[in-house]
């Protein structure tokens, strides 16, 4: 087709540009602005250059939070992805029970984050929570406000409860798109259950799984509300993940400069990891996994 050149077409993307400018670019630029300045109050700022960035790079506090954050994301991904696939494989493929499962599984996804946090905060309490009370009654020492292992276990189980459905739903959509002929051919070829999974289901699910992993990685890496409501980052700093730490710094201590530098680096880390992941996955995909 002949390509028409018409510079007026730029006007068509102007509304989007404006919208993105107000929703993303301008707020982001204020953060950049804060990250290179210092203030002693009175709304007077002066240039600080890259000082805050250097500070942050040498801050043990940030490295610790980053470590905890990476560990958190790694743990929930290694649980949620296989578990989601497992659930999807065992779901009824059609009929009433299939719809029933889909609805029940969507429920956790519809609950607001702070409500999820509150549910688990109460659920885990030793005095009135069903889970905490039961564990305590069974003689298992469990107290997420004092024991950091218990705190970690709680927020991980909570995240698995909240988000595994998303992986399962995506995997299920991938499975549903496989034509019957593949399963029939596999039967004819006498493929084992494992071979069917390995050579038919997994390759066909790869596309949606990639999306699931990316979404779950980004979401878990930015998680704030639920662990904040449950543990508040404690006991000590043991569940202080990156964004919890960031909020403490920016709003608790009002250290705007370091917090801004921190956020920019936080943002770049997410961008970098997502990009690396995406590139590796698409390359694998091209080569045929």
């Amino acid at each position, binding site marked *: 087709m002949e390509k028409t050149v018409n510079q007026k077409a730029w006007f068509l993307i102007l509304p989007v540009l404006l919208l993105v400018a107000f929703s993303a670019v301008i707020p982001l630029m204020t953060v950049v602005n804060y990250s290179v300045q210092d203030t002693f109050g009175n709304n007077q700022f002066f240039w600080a250059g890259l000082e805050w960035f250097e500070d942050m790079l040498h801050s043990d506090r940030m490295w610790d939070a980053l470590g905890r954050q990476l560990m958190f994301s790694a743990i929930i991904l290694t649980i949620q992805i296989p578990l989601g696939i497992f659930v999807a494989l065992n779901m009824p493929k059609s009929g009433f029970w299939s719809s029933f499962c889909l609805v029940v599984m969507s429920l956790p996804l519809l609950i607001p984050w702070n409500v999820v946090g509150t549910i688990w905060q109460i659920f885990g309490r030793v005095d009135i929570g069903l889970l905490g009370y039961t564990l305590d009654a069974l003689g298992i020492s469990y107290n997420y406000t004092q024991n950091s292992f218990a705190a970690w276990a709680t927020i991980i189980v909570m995240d698995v409860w909240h988000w595994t459905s998303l992986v399962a739903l995506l995997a299920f959509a991938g499975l549903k798109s496989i*034509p019957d*002929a*593949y399963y*029939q*051919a596999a*039967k*004819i*070829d*006498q*493929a*084992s259950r494992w*071979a069917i999974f390995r*050579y*038919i289901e997994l*390759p*066909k699910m790869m596309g949606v799984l990639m999306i699931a992993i990316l979404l779950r990685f980004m979401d878990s890496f930015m998680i704030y509300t639920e662990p904040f409501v449950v543990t508040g980052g404690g006991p000590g700093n043991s569940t202080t993940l990156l964004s919890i730490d960031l909020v403490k710094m920016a709003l608790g201590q009002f250290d705007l400069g370091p917090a801004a530098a921190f956020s920019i680096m936080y943002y770049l880390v997410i961008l970098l990891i997502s990009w690396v992941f995406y590139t590796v996955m698409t390359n694998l995909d091209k*080569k*045929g*996994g």
Partner: protein
Amino acid sequence: MAKITLDNLAHSYYPNPKGEDDFALKELNHDWTDGEAYALLGSSGCGKSTLLNIISGLLHPSQGRILFDGHDVTHATTANRNIAQVFQFPVVYDTMTVRDNLAFPLKNRGADPKYIAERVQQIGRMIGMEAELDNRARGLTADAKQKISLGRGMVREDVNALLFDEPLTVIDPHMKWELRTQLKSLHHEFGHTMIYVTHDQTEALTFADKVVVMYDGRVVQIGTPQELFERPEHTFVGYFIGSPGMNVIPAEVSGKMANVHGASLTLDRGYAALDGKVEIGVRPEFVSLTQGEGLPVNVRRVEDVGRHKIVRADLFGSEINIVASEDQVISPDMNRVTFDPKHVNVYVNDWIEEGEAA
């Protein structure tokens, strides 16, 4: 290799079929002779694939039994029936190489690796993909993928039967010929029982020793291509096979005479009084255009298809086709047709009426 017997077989996709209309496959008794090549021919939705899937065990019939060499396999799994089947759309294992794809059914059955390597090479040569054996199956064209599917179907030598479900739909015409020829030579070489589902009459007639014609969930005729051509037992077979199909003309028949809108013609056989919808069927090849005698027609169009001419004409308001030889001159005063009495069949309610030789 085995003789396959269908005993009282029928299938409905409804859990509680009420009438005959609910059955996708109506009651059927048939023996598929060991080592013969069959084509299952019929228009889309006539139950061909249903029948095929029942034989391979992908589908369990609502009633009746399937026997392989006399053993009841109605409830046996696909794996236990040891059947190979190729589907309409290519099924390849994307992440494997072409070689691994072809080897897959053998590996799953625990064959000797040396034998697998040899056999895969042989099949690779047969489907013309020897050079691409080590490429990944992903990213190949649809017809290359379908060749792999065919290859995977043929790789096992000891199968009881080879079933093909319109396997050449996605293949381009040139390759179709070649693959069909290879399937035939494979059949001669190994003598597998082959059942080939298609809605393409050329494919069916060139591939098979026996053609099974299905219509509306029922087998209407089983015969050699010649039998189907000369004595269609059902008007559907007449329409469906031949290009153009058989002319079916409403008529009154008594004794050796047929009466078409007041004009009468002589038949080769005698018939007793007939009840129901009576028609005569005659293939365009056995109709000739004449000047003075026969039934009056209006010639509407003459198509030259190369080997012969097809004359489209009007006989008492309904269409009639005539095949004329390539060198016959068709002049404007040719407005009558005669039928070769030997090849005029009489149908009552769409089924052939035998009549008695005079």
